Every structure is written in structure tokens, then in C-alpha cells.
């Protein structure tokens, strides 16, 4: 794992996050979402991405953060997970960065369990610390909890 990893930086309620670029299929503006009644609360609904139906994940709700302000312009990071596409709704999407192995740190012991379960560790940058999220864990742990 000496190879440099490519990551996309994200912002969510003031927190700096990132996600492996290899899993990201698309970055789009949040558009019309059809709510799915009876679905779990962190599922914002379903949306049309150029003819493909993607399930939109309300990341703030999923991670127990305050809801976004009314009318806030949010972005979606579309990830592909075992055949299903998910749009992770975040506040903004930053840039693609490279992270080498020695820039990586394990989760700090103080990280709350809810975050720990979806974390792939911390990426150390000159000006900030980024938490890398694991999209698979993000969806699977919550889906399993409901089942």
C-alpha cells in the first residue's frame, strides 16, 4: 500500500470528509428526489441520473447531524456498490487529492462509534484532517440494523 490513493474531499455540516475516488461514479447537483414512503429515515428517496435510478442518502441524517438549511444547495457524490448506485447528499464537494500511506492515521480513540463504523481512517493534510468514509459500511450497517 505504498501507492498513492486518490480521494475526493467533501464537506458535511462543517466536517471534512473524503471518499475513495475509485468508488465515485459521478458528482452532480442535488436535483428532484422522489421520496420513498416507509423507507428508513436516512434514505432521502430515489432520483434519476441519466436514465439510471439511484438511491439518495441523506448523509446528515445518516450521521446524526442537524438537517441542512431550507433551500441550501447541496451536492451528490454518486457511488456504485455491488450493482446499486447511491447518491450521497453532502454540502459541497471539494477536489481530488492524493494521499500516500504515511499520510494516513488510524481512527482516533475518541471517535464516536457511529462514525467509527463507517470510517476507513484519517488522512493527514497540511491544513486539515480528513475522515475517509467507507460507502459500503455506510449503507450496509444501516440496512442491516433495520432488518
Amino acid at each position, binding site marked *: 500500500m505504498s501507492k498513492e490513493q486518490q480521494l475526493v474531499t467533501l464537506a458535511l455540516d462543517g466536517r471534512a470528509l473524503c471518499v475513495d475516488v475509485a468508488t465515485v461514479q459521478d458528482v452532480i447537483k442535488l436535483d*428532484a428526489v*422522489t*421520496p*420513498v*414512503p*416507509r*423507507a*428508513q429515515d436516512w*434514505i432521502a*428517496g*430515489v*432520483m*434519476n441520473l*441519466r*436514465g*439510471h*435510478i*439511484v*438511491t439518495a442518502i441523506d448523509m446528515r441524517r445518516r450521521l446524526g447531524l442537524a438537517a441542512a438549511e431550507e433551500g441550501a444547495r447541496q451536492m451528490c457524490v454518486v457511488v456504485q456498490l*455491488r450493482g*446499486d*448506485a*447511491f447518491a450521497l447528499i453532502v454540502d459541497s464537494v471539494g477536489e481530488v487529492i492524493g494521499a500516500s500511506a504515511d499520510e494516513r492515521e488510524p481512527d482516533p480513540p475518541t471517535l464516536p462509534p457511529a462514525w467509527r463504523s463507517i470510517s476507513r481512517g484519517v488522512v493527514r493534510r497540511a491544513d486539515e484532517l480528513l475522515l475517509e468514509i467507507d460507502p459500503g459500511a455506510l*449503507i450496509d450497517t*444501516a*440496512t442491516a440494523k*433495520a*432488518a
Partner: protein
Amino acid sequence: MDELLQDFLEETAENLERADNDLVRFEQEPGDAALLNEIFRLVHTVKGSCGFIGLPRLEALAHAAETLLGRLRDGTLAVSADAVTATLDAIEGIRAITASLAETETEPEGDDAALIARLDALASGDAAPAPEPAPAPAPVSRSGHDDTAPVATAIQSQSIRVSVDLLEELMTSVSELVLTRNQLLQAHRQSEAETLSLPLDRLSAQIGRLQDSVMRTRMQPISGAWAALPKMVRSLALDLGKALDLEMAGGDTELDRQMLEMIKDPLAHMVRNAADHGIEPPDVRRAANKPEKGNIRLAAAQEGGHITITLTDDGRGLDMDELREQAVKKGLMSRAEAEAATDTQLTRIIFAPGFSTAREVTAVSGRGVGMDVVRANVEKIGGSIEVESKQGEGTRFLVRIPLTLAIMPTLIVGIGEARCAVPQIAVAELVRTGETTDYRIEHVAGSPVLRLRGRLLPLMDLAGTLGVERGAADHVLVIRSAGLMFGVLVDEIFETEELVVKPVSRPLGGLAVYSGNAILGDGSVIMILDTNGLAAEISDVSGEESAETAPAAAAADSEALLVFTAAGFAKPLAVPLSLVSRIEDIERSAIEGGPGAHVVQMRGKLVPIRPLTGVIDQTAATRQTALVFAMGPQSLALAVEAVVDIVDARVDIEVEAAAKGSLGTAIVAGKATDILDVGWLLGTGRDAAPGALADSERGSRAA
């Protein structure tokens, strides 16, 4: 995986399937040299490829089979049932090894020495003992002349292999094209730019054709789902000691590839059932003056947007008395219902969960996987299944399935702000309710019901079920699904739309109320309701209460009851709701006749009306509520005071102890309530009824 191996596995899978059918046909026509040649060539190809790639175990087995087939081909050996069985076993062995190869990419551990020895012994002409004793009758199955026959042998087909993923991708692109076209057309209508009209029309037409062609690439002949059946019937015949003949027609009927997969297992199950339970043993058939060989016929045809598949057997048919017994025993019908049920009603209960008329469990079927599973699978793909049977003459199943799962005609409905799509196949009727219409939604103890042509239709409040905001909720979709008929309350009914159905993502997969989702013409996504899931929701609600009192037996024993009060009875009485065909509100003056026999005119027919006890008090009120029961040609209106409630309650049928006129008791709201025996009520003279019932009423009062 190694490309060479991949190609080999794909080719072998195809070859094996063909070999199976050829062998079964071959046993029937041992003189057919062309057929034998074909089989020999198939096995030979397998052997050749094995040696090339380096698969010693597979090669040895194929070689032994090839040797035997070679001897049969050049006539030095006569075709025997043993030889065919051994060859089939060898092919089964090859299939098992290749299946393992596909998974692990290496040959599985194992020893085929016994099988190879058997093949060799047969090839050398020794009378090799078969591993299991060969059954006495020589059963054979044959496929129809017009289906699985390898027409392709002579003509090299002009086709190429395309991965399913690529086809799916094409389909998605085309759907997106259609959407974009629709948006363009809409924009054009507003702008009225003349110059664009012609090219837009052409584009539109081309996209339509493209969509059609892409749809067709997904279509495959239904014989693909049948390929394994001749072999299955053949081995069933051997196992069961019956002579069976499988006829197949219309195998070239095309349907969606996905559909093909989903109909495969239900069909195999039905054929197995027909062979096991339908067709009688040869001696029974002989005694019944039937040909010894049982006939099972499978036919498919396209009718409009649907495929109909009929499965007919000339076996013993369904035993109506047995069905009646089982229906009562399993609590699916009351005794009175069962006695009065028509053959159609009786045959339908074979689709009820856990139902089996097989007296004993055989190795072949009757192990609890019943027709209910078949029905569920057929309904899951938007199809329907019916059965007709004549005792002693045979049974006929009729399965109707849509051509494709990919495109579904739906009705778009609105609930509050939300929109949902409902599969049109499940919608029997649309009813508008409200002040200005003939229909009103009424409430029985809080549960909404609709009187539809005198029938009581339970209603589902979709807004409540989905947990969304409610609007006017004045439209009713009458849904027929999972053997139930119920109404679904919605606010608005928009248009019908043909949707390209896509499965929901995993986190949404647990929601039984949705069968999929799709993109609408305006580009938004819509959820498609699963009417089976909704039906389950309805029965869930009614099951909850009874589950507390009798968790295990609740489902089987509980029954929807209509509770009413009647003059002369202190306590409410109940009748099974399923027996009430209508509730009528009759003008008192419309009741004719003297105190001895009252009649009332309903839809041009005179129907006797009578109270449970005493006589109708013609002076009391101006209107009279009556429950109308219909059994066969007979109808009877029962004058009651008022309908109190419709409940789902556990019913104790007291066959021995019950007084005449009473079917048993049910616990309704914590109190024992007598259930009226409607069959008895209809069957007896009018004078007998009041007294007997009054007796039972006194009895229960004393108790």
C-alpha cells in the same frame, strides 16, 4: 478466468442441454441414425475440448460415453434403456464437473470409475447390472414434433454472442433516449418552430423502432424454460413406475429472458405435480378404460401482451370431496361453505398456503412446497394462474404472464403529494366516491368499507399505510391480488403509463409494498406498488389481534365475520363475511306478502326475506336492513336490525355440540358470539329456523 476455459464452459453448457433432449428423443426412435450421430458429435466435442485444455477427469468420462455411443452408432450394439440411462448419468457427471469448473476453475476431486466401468461394460456388450433395478414398464417421454427438434443443425445460424450486461446497457440508453425525445417534443410544442417538425417526427419514429428492436433482443423462445422437462419426465416415469408422455407445443413463443428464468421453476413444479399426483398408475388407468400411458401436454401461445401457458394432464383430476374435506380441516372454509362451494371455488383452494391433497409424501413431490408457492411466483411476475379439473378426466392449469417484466402497464395515482404506480393487471375497477356519486365510503367500527354492487369491499387507506399526508381519499382502486379483493383509497388518478421497471436498491428491498421503480416521461422517478405486498398488509392488520389469543393457529382459524343484531336476540350474532353476498337497505313498503312468506324484489328477482325469529314487524321503521345470501340459484334475505361490525376473529367450529342453526362460536370483543349456519338456514323450511336458533340462543345464554 482463462478465456479458453470460459468459452469451453459456455459451449459445453449449450451442448449438454441439447444432448439431454436428443437422448430422450433417441430412446423413442432408436432407428434415427441422424439423431444418434448428433449425440455422438456433442459428446465427442466435449471430449476433444477437454484434451485440448487439459481436463483429465472430464476427458475420461466423456471418452467412456463416446465409446458407448460409438458402438450404438455403428450398430454393433442395440439401444437399450440401460444404455440411455448410463449415457444420461455420464452427461450428468460432465455437467457436475463443468459446474464446479465454472466456480473454482479446477476439476473437482472425485472418482468416476464406477460410472466409467458401467459405460465400458455396456459398450463391450456385457449385460452390465444397472446401479438401481430398472422398473418394469418401459416409460418414455417424447417431445412434440414442432418444438425442441434441433432445426438449427442444418442451418448455421446467423447470430453472435452478446453479453446480457451489454443488452441491459442498451436498454437503459434507449429508455433515456425515449425520455429525451419526450422532453424535446414537449419543448417543441411550446416553441412551435416549424423547421424542426419534420426531423423531430423522424427522430421520434426511429427511436420507437429502436426501442422495439432492443426489446426484441431480450426475447427468447419459451422452449428454453422447457429444455429440462423431457428429461425430468423421463426420470419421473422411471421413479414412479408410470408410463408418461410429455407433449410440448408452441415452444417458439418468445418472451423476455428474465421472465423465462422466473417461470422455469414454477413450470417444472407443475409438471412434476402432474406426473406424480395427476397421472394414475398404469393399472388404475387400465381399469378406468384409459390408455396406459398418461399424457401431459404443455402449450404456450402469445395473446396480445401476454403469454398463456396451459398444462393439461389426462389423469385422475382433482377429487372434489377430498378438497372439501381438506378445506374444512385446514380452516379455509366452514362446513357449510364447503358443501355449497362450486367446483371452481373448490379447485381454487389448491393455491392456498400449505394445501396438499397428496395422501402420502412421495420422493417426488408433496413435501410442503405446494401450489401456493407456484401461485406466489406467478403473481410475483405479474401473472395469474387458474385451474380447471374434471374428476377422472384430468386437470388443466392456465397460466397467464406478461411478455416482459421490463415494461409494465401501470396506472399513476396520487396520494397527498406523492405519486405511485399501480400495475394495471391487478386493478379490476376504479370507483369514484363522494356526495355526488352513487358510492359512499362507510365505516364499520372504524374500518373503511365500500358497498360495491351490494358487496362489502374492505378498503385500505393507502396514505395511512405509507405514512404520507392524506388528501381527499375519494377514489378507490379495486385490486384483485393474492386471492384477495380489496379497495385502495387514493386521492387522485392520473394517467396510465407504460413503465420500464427497474428493481429497487438493496436498502429498499425489504419494503414489501414496492415491486420496483421506474422513470416517468417527465424524468422523475416513481415507485411501483406491489399489490401482493399490499394484500399481505391487509391480512397482517387483521391477523394482529388474533395472534395474541392463539399465536400458532391464528392464521388458519381466524375468519372475517360480519356481526349484526337481530330482533329477538339480546346478543349480537355473526355470519362469515365471505357468505354475505350483499347488504341491502330495503324500503319497508317494498316487502310484499303476508305474515307467512315475505318476499322482496331485488334486481328483477323475488327473494324471500325473513327474520331470524318471529315475523317481520312491518310497522316498526320505514327501512329494513337485510343480509343477502346466495348459494347457487338460491337467494335469501335475512332481515336484521343493524350491521354492527366486521371483525376478524378466531372461530371454534363445534361440529358435535353446536345446536342446529349455529356453526359454532367466535370470540368477538371478548364475548362468545354465535355464528349462524347459513347453509342450514337456506336449506330448512322457514318454520324450523326460528325455534332452533332460539334454542341455541338460550343455550348460550345459560352458558
